[in-house]
């Protein structure tokens, strides 16, 4: 029983972290129809920016928002110079090549500037573990989960309540329709790209203290995020959150009770099952109005 509770806690905390990466990916896919292979690189940039800002003397909690701003600024520069010109309306095929190239360039730049060795990202929560009734909870992970849930809830509320948020959803559902509604579609796309990148940067800043900063640190997390996004339904933000929860809990339960070595396959098995039974994903809409 204790093992089950500990496993469920592990899974929930894990899912909250996955959700943050996956939501960024799905927002960008939904509005821009870009498969952002550079997501992991922006994740790494978030961790490195946090680390460098901390080295400049800022405390971790202040370094996080500053790092997110830095990543968003880099994202904006790339969006304005490359992504906007090369990718919008070019479909998913071109986007894979361009975002992959961006990812390689960012990773190479990190190696050049900071070096390839993993570096610790200091956090006041450090290695502290909170023991509640015999259950171990890492303080950093509680912080990651709390911050992810708070940011995602805020984001969901903003999408629902604000006109700009609604316009993001509108562009992701029907970009042509948005054009006919007087919505500045390129502006909304740029905004979505920045939000998605900022979410990746935030995830890197939050998870950095746990996994250390190294140039390819985003790779494994983004692979999981891809399964989450497909599971939840491409472009569906609610789906990404649900998918993250399913994969987080599923992985934790599977690892504890079934088999560690088969766990990464679990996500893909779930993806295949969902695609067979419900091709639009858990929360995705069936395509109604695509021409």
């Amino acid at each position, binding site marked *: 029983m204790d*093992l089950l509770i*500990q*496993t469920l806690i*592990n*899974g929930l*905390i*894990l899912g909250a*972290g996955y959700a943050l990466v996956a939501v960024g990916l799905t927002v960008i896919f939904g509005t821009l129809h870009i498969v952002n292979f550079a997501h992991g690189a922006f994740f790494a940039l978030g961790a490195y920016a946090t680390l460098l800002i901390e080295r400049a003397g800022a405390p971790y909690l202040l370094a996080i928002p500053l790092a997110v701003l830095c990543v968003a600024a880099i994202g904006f520069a790339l969006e304005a110079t490359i992504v906007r010109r090369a990718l919008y309306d070019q479909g998913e095929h071109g986007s894979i090549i361009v975002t992959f190239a961006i990812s390689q360039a960012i*990773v*190479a730049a990190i*190696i050049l500037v900071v*070096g*390839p*060795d*993993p*570096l*610790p990202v*200091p956090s006041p929560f*450090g*290695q*502290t*573990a909170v*023991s509640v009734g015999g259950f*171990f909870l*890492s303080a950093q*992970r509680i912080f990651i989960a709390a911050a992810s849930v708070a940011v995602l809830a805020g984001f969901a509320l903003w999408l629902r309540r604000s006109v700009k948020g609604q316009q993001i959803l509108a562009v992701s559902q029907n970009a042509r329709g948005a054009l006919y509604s007087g919505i500045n579609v390129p502006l909304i796309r740029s905004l979505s790209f920045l939000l998605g990148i900022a979410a990746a940067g935030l995830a890197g800043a939050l998870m950095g203290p*746990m*996994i*250390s*900063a*190294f*140039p*390819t*640190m985003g*790779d*494994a*997390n983004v*692979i*999981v995020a891809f399964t989450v996004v497909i599971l939840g339904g491409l472009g569906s933000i609610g789906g990404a959150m649900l998918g993250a929860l399913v994969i987080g809990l599923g*992985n*934790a339960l599977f*690892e*504890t009770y079934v088999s*560690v*070595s088969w*766990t*990464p*396959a679990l996500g893909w098995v779930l993806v295949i099952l969902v695609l067979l039974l419900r091709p639009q994903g858990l929360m995705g809409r069936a395509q109604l109005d695509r021409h």
Partner: protein
Amino acid sequence: MKLRAKAALAALAVLVATPAAQAADPVKIGMVLPLTGPTAGYGKDGKLGADMAAAEINAAGGILDGREIELVYEDEKGAPQDGVAAVQKLMTRERVQAIIAGMNSSITLAESAITKNRILHVNPAAQADAITAQGSPWLFQINNTASTNATIFHTYLTEQMAPKAIAVMGENTEFNKAVLENLREIVGESSVELAEIATYDGATTDFTSIITRLKSTGADMIYVIDAYPARTAQIWKQIRQQGGFPMEAHAVGTVQRSAIVPAEGAMEGVITADIFIAEGATGDMARFIDRFTEQNGVAPNKVSLVVYEAVKVVAGAMDKAGSADDYALISDTLRGNVWTTPRGALSFDDNGRAKAPYFYIHKVTGEDVGLLDTFEVE
């Protein structure tokens, strides 16, 4: 006036140097290292060692009557397909005379399929027994095999530390397979119990549940088999967060500062082992460490050392054999002689395997490993 004199001197130097350079083309050695990717730190460390070796050889007049050594680097990016591509490019485009390639065992196995019977291949660091077990006549390995290293380390773990039960976690790789096989064997002969073996995939992002599961077995020793520095740091942090284990060990030859520093103290006291330790070095090794530290501003680690030795051994064997491309002759020369390296005398057996003269049990102390015990290898 002064400037003009300098320019004239430089021109004269070029005039003098040119005919000699034409007479003796450099001997090109292909270096395949992970310069990017998750193990790029190893590539960086290895390159420092290789560059130092080449500089020393060239400063001493080169090999084969004055030919210089030229190192040509290619990036294997920590992936087998990139390793294969790098080796192919070096052999066909760069026309190198030897390949030095081998950090990760899975990648080295893929690379050795390309070099087999075609070119001299020296594997500096990868340990899996399968690499040198394929009967490749021109393939040599500087590091000990995983089973040699593991036999000593696992015997130390079971006999000296004597836990009741060991819980193992490790990445699903060739290296892990070799280490696990040996562990089962050694543990099978003792009263120690193997509580659980958790093999995870390279794409695993979090280890909390695995550690939770391992802790629930009640094992009193955790043994981690992983060669990736960042992941090693993450795993030990998460082990620490869950309260740790009474005894803690990490696989042979995989713990460097690049894992200990980002672990931020979580690896303190972890037992591991290697064929090299800087602490307490004497003689040739002490001189090597001093030279390296002076030139690079950082102390060498095992990776720097074995890559340095690989370059030295390849150059030495070519020089002694009197040829840069008669691989049968060079290989016979390699097997038939004893090679002096910073670690001491190194010789290769029929499979091309070198045996380290000494083996050290380490304990993580501060930001590096400290010496716990030394074994002489028969």
